[in-house]
Each structure stands twice: as structure tokens, then as C-alpha cells.
């Protein structure tokens, strides 16, 4: 069931290319249908997995020999962690289409690239052959480059190029590490489960782990390699930023967990403290920089760096609770950041034609676009980590895990949360609830459209649903963290 997500997305992209260029309506509907079909497959697959595989072990979806000479298999499989992220991709894809409804320029190409990106992302999350994973990972770079360079806004060529270069450098590092692992193991396979059984020499792990981990984590916004993120997010079109923050950053975090941490547990132990420190620096630094930005998209862009820091911190706790928090935070941040970018990029920027806080201030958007204001307030509360939203459960687990290993860093991360609250309140007040003079607010603003409302409700509903019933996802994640693949990295924990 889950493997269909990839196929459907690429088929949708192909169908779009075949459409006549001027049929924008058809293009939109095709994209929406494709995204919905992908989400439906993801949901069905998740239910099926939860019913059938109580053990949390990966379940094979597809496995056939692809390039026999190199022992490369087209091997797709899923466990609780990958399914969580597949679900995220499905939801983000649907919401992204809804928030791109107003794209008039080269609509067909836009959605074709969009679906190709979604398909590649599904592919990364479901690949259990490292070569295949790498192919999908690389494949994702192309559409995201064009999405930004063609449909982007502020300094789009710069943002697109920077993102592409960072991604390519990261994947080069990953590639070197993977080939070395292939050679060193001598196992004649790229299969993740096979390689994970092999015990790599400690000396090898000490350099291979940071190489592969950082190579992936660049895309997760690991400080100090995060600088592509704010510029990329700002340059991208609304759906582009939603996908960048929502799922592309998760590719990095997922790769770091699935590949680097699984294959090289000893290297992981050796570098655990250093990476945790970088993660916490990212948390505090991202929030602090967000506090002083004037461009609303930069605020959200830097806040993403801060929130992804929690993912990396959770990974470094090496406890079940911390890892579970990290995976949940990947999901939660994908939803919340997507929502924030949607409000800022689509609801505010497309109407007010500015994202500058000082220019937004006299407009008093809460009166002009109350729906946008309410959505942003709720999304902001979720982003602050207030209880009742998915981010709270995630940060709660990450911090509880972190207390056991890095008490000092935990206190520092607490400071980061506080700064995170401060910048969000600043945005609330400046962008939405400033007392505007009437003249400026006489600008006619088109009402929030139905697709936007639907998209916002999907994302809001998801974050509240998981915030109130975390079990829905934890039932997928927790058993998987007990499975053999994760045994190498997990030390004891409270549960």
C-alpha cells in the first residue's frame, strides 16, 4: 500500500506534463487528487502496518534486484518511523497544493515539479537500500531548485543556488561514507538491514559517522551548516517553503537517524556530546536571530532552525523517549512550520505585498484578515510549544530524554524555548495586532479563499489531534524504537 505513494506521485507528475499548457484548472485538480491519493495510501498503509506488525520491525513492500552487478536492490520497506514521516509528507503535500491554488504562471510545470518532489521524498522515507535512498535523495534536489528559482520571490536565484550547493555538498559527504561502508563491510550489499548487522571497525566509525551524519544533517539545519535554510525558505514560493521546512528538512534528520546512527553506533557515542552541543546552540541561536528579524519569513525560517535543533538534541539523547520525541518533533514541526509559512507567504504576503514587520504594523491585519490572524495565533501557540499541540508532546519527550544525559544543555534549551515564545509574541503584536491607522488599512484585501481555509484546517486539525491524542503516532513510533534496528543506538531509558 505504502509503495503506491511514490508511484502515484510520479504518475501524477507525468500526467501533468501531458496536460495542455493552458489548462490551469485541470492542473490544480490533478495535483490535488494526486496528493489526496498519496495521503490516502499513506493512511491506509499506516493502519495496515499498525494492525499487522505489533513488533515494530520493518515490513518489506517491494524488493527486487535492480543493478545486479553492484548488488543494488529496489528495496522499499517501512517501519513506524518511516510511516510517521510518510504521513507527514502526505498531509503536507495536500496542504501545499491547497496553498498554491493561486499560482497562475506555468501552473502545469509548477505542480509537476511539486509532485516529483513529493514522490522523491516518499521514496527517501521508504527506501531500505542505501543506494536507492541516495538516488531519491538526489532526485529531490532538482525539483526544489527549480521551484525556488522559477516561482520564488526575494533573491530567488541566490536562495535556490545556495540550497542546491549545500544539498550537493552534503550528499557528496554521504556518498563517500556510503561507498566506504560498502567497501569496508565487504558484504556486497547496500541493504540497510544487512549493513546494520555488520560491526564496522571503531576507527572507521569515528570518521565515517560524522561524515555521513553531518552530510545529512546539513539539510536538517544543523548549526553552523544551517545558513541555506533561512535564505532558501525566504526565496521559495509559499508551497516551496512549506515543503522545505515541512518535509525537506526532515529528509536530513531522517537520513541522519536511519543511516548514520544505525550503521555507526560507536561513532555516534564518540560524537554524541559534540553534536548535542551544536543542536542546543542551534536552538538558542535560531530563536535569538528570529527575535530580531524584520522580514516575517526570516522569522519563521530561523525558528525552523531552532525547532530542528530539538530533533537533533532528541536524537543525541540515545534514549527511547528522546528518540521518540525527535521523530514526533519531525512530524510536528513539519505541520506547524508549514502552517506558519502558509499564513505568512500566502495569506499575508500575497495580499499585503510585504512581509516587513514595520510595514505590516500600520495595517492591523487582525481586522483585515481575521482568519489569517486567528490561524497564525494558534499556529504560533503551537510553535511556542504550548500544551495541547503536537509540538508540546515532542519537546516534552526530547527534554525529558535530555535531562538524563545533558542536564546543562537541557537548561540552555529551556532558554531557547523562552526566546522562542518572545519572538512569536513579537510577531503577533507587530504583524497582526498593532493599532493601525484607518487610512492604511483601507487597502482592499481579497478574502481568504476556500482552498486556503481547507489547507489551514487540515494542518491545524493535525497538530491539535496529535497534541491531544499523541498515542495515534506513538503507537507507531514506540514499538519501532524497540526493534532490532534501533537496539544498537538506544541505551536504557525510563521506559
Amino acid at each position, binding site marked *: 500500500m505504502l509503495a503506491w505513494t511514490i508511484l502515484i506521485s510520479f504518475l501524477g507528475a507525468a500526467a501533468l506534463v501531458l496536460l495542455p499548457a493552458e489548462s490551469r484548472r485541470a492542473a490544480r485538480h490533478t495535483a490535488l487528487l494526486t496528493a489526496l491519493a498519496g495521503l490516502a495510501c499513506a493512511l491506509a498503509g499506516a493502519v495496515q502496518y499498525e494492525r499487522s506488525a505489533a513488533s515494530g520491525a520493518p515490513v518489506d513492500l517491494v524488493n527486487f534486484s535492480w543493478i545486479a552487478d553492484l548488488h543494488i536492490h529496489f528495496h522499499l520497506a517501512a517501519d513506524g518511523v518511516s510511516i510517521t514521516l510518510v504521513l507527514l509528507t502526505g498531509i503536507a503535500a495536500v496542504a501545499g497544493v491547497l496553498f498554491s491554488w493561486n499560482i497562475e504562471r506555468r501552473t502545469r510545470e509548477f505542480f509537476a515539479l511539486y509532485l516529483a518532489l513529493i514522490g522523491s521524498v516518499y521514496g527517501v522515507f521508504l527506501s531500505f537500500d542505501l543506494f536507492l535512498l541516495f538516488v531519491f535523495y538526489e532526485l529531490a534536489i532538482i525539483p526544489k531548485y527549480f521551484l525556488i528559482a522559477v516561482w520564488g520571490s526575494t533573491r530567488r536565484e541566490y536562495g535556490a543556488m545556495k540550497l542546491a550547493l549545500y544539498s550537493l555538498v552534503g550528499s557528496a559527504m554521504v556518498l563517500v561514507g556510503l561507498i566506504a561502508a560498502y567497501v569496508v563491510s565487504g558484504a556486497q550489499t547496500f541493504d540497510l538491514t544487512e549493513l546494520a548487522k555488520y560491526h564496522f571497525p571503531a576507527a572507521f566509525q569515528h570518521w565515517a559517522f560524522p561524515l555521513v551524519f553531518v552530510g545529512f544533517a546539513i539539510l536538517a539545519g544543523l548549526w553552523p551548516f544551517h545558513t541555506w535554510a533561512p535564505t532558501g525558505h525566504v526565496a521559495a514560493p509559499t508551497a516551496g517553503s512549506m515543503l522545505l521546512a515541512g518535509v525537506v528538512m526532515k529528509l536530513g534528520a531522517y537520513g541522519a537517524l536511519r543511516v548514520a546512527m544505525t550503521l555507526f553506533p560507536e561513532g555516534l557515542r564518540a560524537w554524541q556530546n559534540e553534536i548535542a552541543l551544536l543542536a542546543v546552540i542551534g536552538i538558542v541561536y535560531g530563536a535569538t536571530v528570529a527575535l530580531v528579524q524584520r522580514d516575517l519569513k526570516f522569522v519563521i525560517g530561523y525558528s525552523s532552525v531552532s525547532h530542528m535543533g530539538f530533533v537533533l538534541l532528541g536524537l543525541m539523547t540515545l534514549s527511547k523517549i528522546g528518540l521518540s520525541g525527535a521523530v514526533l518533533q519531525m512530524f510536528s514541526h513539519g505541520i506547524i512550520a508549514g502552517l506558519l509559512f502558509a499564513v505568512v507567504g500566502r495569506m499575508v504576503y500575497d495580499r499585503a505585498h510585504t512581509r516587513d514587520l514595520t510595514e505590516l504594523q500600520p495595517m492591523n491585519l487582525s481586522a483585515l484578515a481575521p482568519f489569517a490572524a486567528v490561524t497564525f*495565533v494558534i499556529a504560533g501557540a503551537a510553535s511556542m510549544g504550548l*500544551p495541547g499541540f503536537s509540538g508540546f*508532546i515532542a519537546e516534552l519527550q526530547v527534554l*525529558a530524554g535530555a*535531562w538524563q544525559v545533558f542536564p546543562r544543555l*537541557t537548561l540552555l534549551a529551556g532558554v531557547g524555548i523562552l526566546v522562542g*515564545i518572545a519572538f512569536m*509574541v513579537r510577531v503577533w*503584536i507587530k504583524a497582526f495586532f498593532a493599532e493601525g491607522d484607518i487610512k492604511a488599512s483601507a487597502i482592499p484585501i481579497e478574502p481568504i479563499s476556500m482552498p486556503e481555509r481547507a489547507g489551514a484546517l487540515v494542518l491545524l486539525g493535525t497538530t491539535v489531534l496529535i497534541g491531544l491524542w499523541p498515542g495515534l503516532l*506513538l503507537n507507531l513510533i514506540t514499538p519501532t524504537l524497540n526493534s532490532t534496528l534501533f537496539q544498537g543506538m538506544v541505551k536504557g531509558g525510563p521506559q
Partner: protein
Amino acid sequence: MNTIPILSILTVIPLAGGGAALLASGQSKTSRSIAFGASLLSLAVAAAAWAMFDSGRGGAQYVERLAWAPSLGIEYHLGVDGLGLLMVLLSALLAPFAMLASWEIGPNRNLYFALILFLEAGLFGTFTALNFFHWFIYWELGLIPAFFLIKLWGGPRRTRAANQFLIYTLAGSMAMLLAFLALYAATGLFDFEELARLARNGGLDSALFAKLGGSFFKSRETLATVVFFGVFLGFAVKAPLMPFHTWLPSAYTEAPAGTSMLLTGAMSKMGVYGFLRILLPLFPGQMRAMQTPLLCLAVATIVFSAAAALAQRDLKRMVAYSSINHVGYCLLGIFAVVRITGDAGTGSADRAAALNGVMLQMFNHGLTAAALFYFVGLIEMRGGGLRGLDDFGGLRKVAPVFCGLMGITLFASLGLPGLNGFVGEFLIFKGVLPLAGWAAAASTLGLLITAIFLLTILQRVFSGPLPSRWSGWKDLTSGERLTLAPVMALMLLLGTCPQILMRVANPAALALSKLF
């Protein structure tokens, strides 16, 4: 025992009512009626819970337990003992009162009333939840509506006030969250009762140190103290305890009258409630170790806030500072309880007296302070926005009923026997005097100053020559009299028959006093 989940119903009513009021946008009158109806309905449910409460036994009643996220130790666990029930009833009483105070509030009326109801739901939830997870949801749920109530309907300097309020309170909450996560990381527990049980056996500190101690926290005491301070900070900001009070005067002053009534009447009690429900049972050792500095802070809160009130020229600010002062007595009582005097076992009667006093004071101050803010709101409305101490005079002549009722409230606030404020303060002093005589003695200074500034208000506003521009001052309208009648009746009733409250408070106070 109970098959009806009365506490869940209680919390759901304002949530649903708030949602309905929001949906009825456009018809501001309809949505207001819906909101008011919902608040009356929750009052009825709270009254029913009060009537059916079995005061014969301590411990939580109306308990509801449901598995929620078992893998995280999260359980839906509700229950009230006497303390919780008192606070639930207080919140239920104040919400309709506060709505009446802002009956004609300006734009977006439906949103205003919905936010008041959400705030009420947050209060109910905080006072009934016994598992940190959803308790914290409600704790924060109260905050966001309060922020917007101040920000959108407040006075001229509302933005700053709302900002300060939110950031201070959230900073406290985050410290508390980190501390609770440390407890959770060490024990895997979120349940207040189970954590308290562990603390009673002395297992909490050692569990903390076993799991989290090491290179950074080298001693058991340091670690437990850091965790204690995290939780403490959350409550100290909310209550507030000096020096964490600086957000309060401007927040209470800028908020619209109805909001100030709920903030001071019920929300400040969330902090005091936290001290009683969480800090005393979970950290008795740390409270005891810190007793002298804590008592000093409580005395400072009492005396300095009274002095600050005396120095104000703005009626609303005066009442705000007097609110800090009155909550200070509660904190004084709580901090004195942890002291050990003489042999073990003695002083338990004093402890019980002090704790009874604290609970009574929480309820009565809620009632009186809300009424005071109501009156100040009326003065502001009639005075065209003026509320300076020196702007008025001689109003007694044109508004005798106004003067009489506000006079009664002022006297209740300064603790005149026969009115509701007296019993709580009396019991607190009766209990604290043998436990921590110096603190009680120093605090009497606060009583004295309070008397001075409250009488000053009475004198400046109601006596003396009547400025000609106020000659048309309207006395209380029949609607206002009707609003005040139940509150006034309650103030007299509780002043003369405090046992109505003691019946419920006493078992909880006894249970708490046995901890020491």
C-alpha cells in the same frame, strides 16, 4: 462511586459555550446570552458538586481516571478535594459576575465573551486536573485568552501590559515545565498524587539524583533545589510573590474591568493553589530548607505592596497592589506551615488553622477583590475614563447606595469582623503567630497600611465637597444593584457563617497539615 463525570462536564460547558458564542458572530446579543447562559450553567454544576461533596472524608472526590497515553505515563485524572472545590466554586461565581461587569464591552463582543469562557475553562481544568499533562494544558489555556483580553480591550497602554504579562507568566511556566520534565525523566510519573506519595517516602530526591545526578549536579541537594526552584518560579510569578510581581500592576490596571476581576479573583489563585497542591506535597524538604528566605519574601510582599498601594494615585492601581497584598497573606500562611517548632508533633493545630485560613482567604479575597474591581470599573465608566484618587469627592451625597456598597466591600477587604475578609486573615495570623512570630508581627504592618489606604479611598472619593462636574453622578442602576446583590449577600453570609466554607476546607487543610 460517581457515574456522572461531573468535573469533565463542568470543564466542557464553558468550552462548548465559548465555541457557540464564537459561531454566533454577527449577533453580538445572542452570543452574549449564550455565553452568560453557559457561565450560569457551570455555576449550577459547581453548586451541585458543592452540595453533594462529602466533607466527612479527605482526599479527592468525583474522581475520574481514564488511560490516555499510557506509554508516556499520561492519564486523564480528575478529582477535587476541599481546596479544589472551593476554587472551582469561586471561578464559577466570578465568571458570570465578570461578564456582567463588561456587559456593554466594545467591538467584537462575541470574541470577548468567548475568551472569558475559555479562561473559565482553563481555571476549572487547573483546579480539577491531577495529572501534570492535562493540568498544564489548562494552566496555559487560561493564559492565551487573558493575553488577548488585555491586548484587545485594555486601556491605553495595553500592548505593553499584555506583553509583559504573557512573557513573565510563560517564563515561569517554562521553568516549571523543565522542572516537571526532570521529575518525569527521573520517575516516569506525571501524576500529582503518585509523585506526592513518592515524596512522602523520601523517594523523590533520591530518584532524581539517581537518574539525573552526575557530572553537572554533584550533590543531591543541589539537584532537588534546582528542580524545586523551577516549579516554584511558575507559581511565584502567577500568585505573585515579590519580586516576581512586576507584571501585575499594569496588567490589572490596563485590563477591562471584567477581565481584571477574573485575573485577580481566580487566576492569581492558580498560583496559590499550586503552592498548596504541588509544592507543599512534592517538595516539603526544600520548602523547609528555604523557609526563612521565603517568609521574608512573603512579608516583603505584604508590606511593600501595601505601601505601594498607599503611594498610588490611580484607583485601579491601588486595588491592584492591594490584591498583591492580600495574596501575600496566603503565601505567608503557606510558608509558615513548613516551620518546625519545638518537638515534632506540636503545632499541628496551628498548621491546620493557618491552612484553613489560607483557603478561606483565597476564596474571600477572590470575591472581595473582584467586587472592588467592579466598583472601580463603574467609577471609571461614570467618570468618563477618570479614575484618579483626586478626581472625585463627595459622591456620597449623590450616590448613597453606591457609596454604601463600595464601603462595605472596602471594609471587607481590610478585614473588618463580620465581613468575609476577616476570618481568613484571622486564622492565618492565629496559625502563623506561634509558628513564625516575627513574620506575623512584621506583617501586621501591612494590615495597618492597608487600613490606611482603603480608608483613604473611601474618604477621597465619597466624602468632602462634591465637584460640580459630578453633580449629575448616577447612583447604582437597578441592573447594577441586581448584579451586586448576590455578591454582597455572600460577603455578609460568609462573614457571619464562615463554617459554610470551613466544612469543605477543613478536611483538605488537615490532610495538608499532616505532611509536616
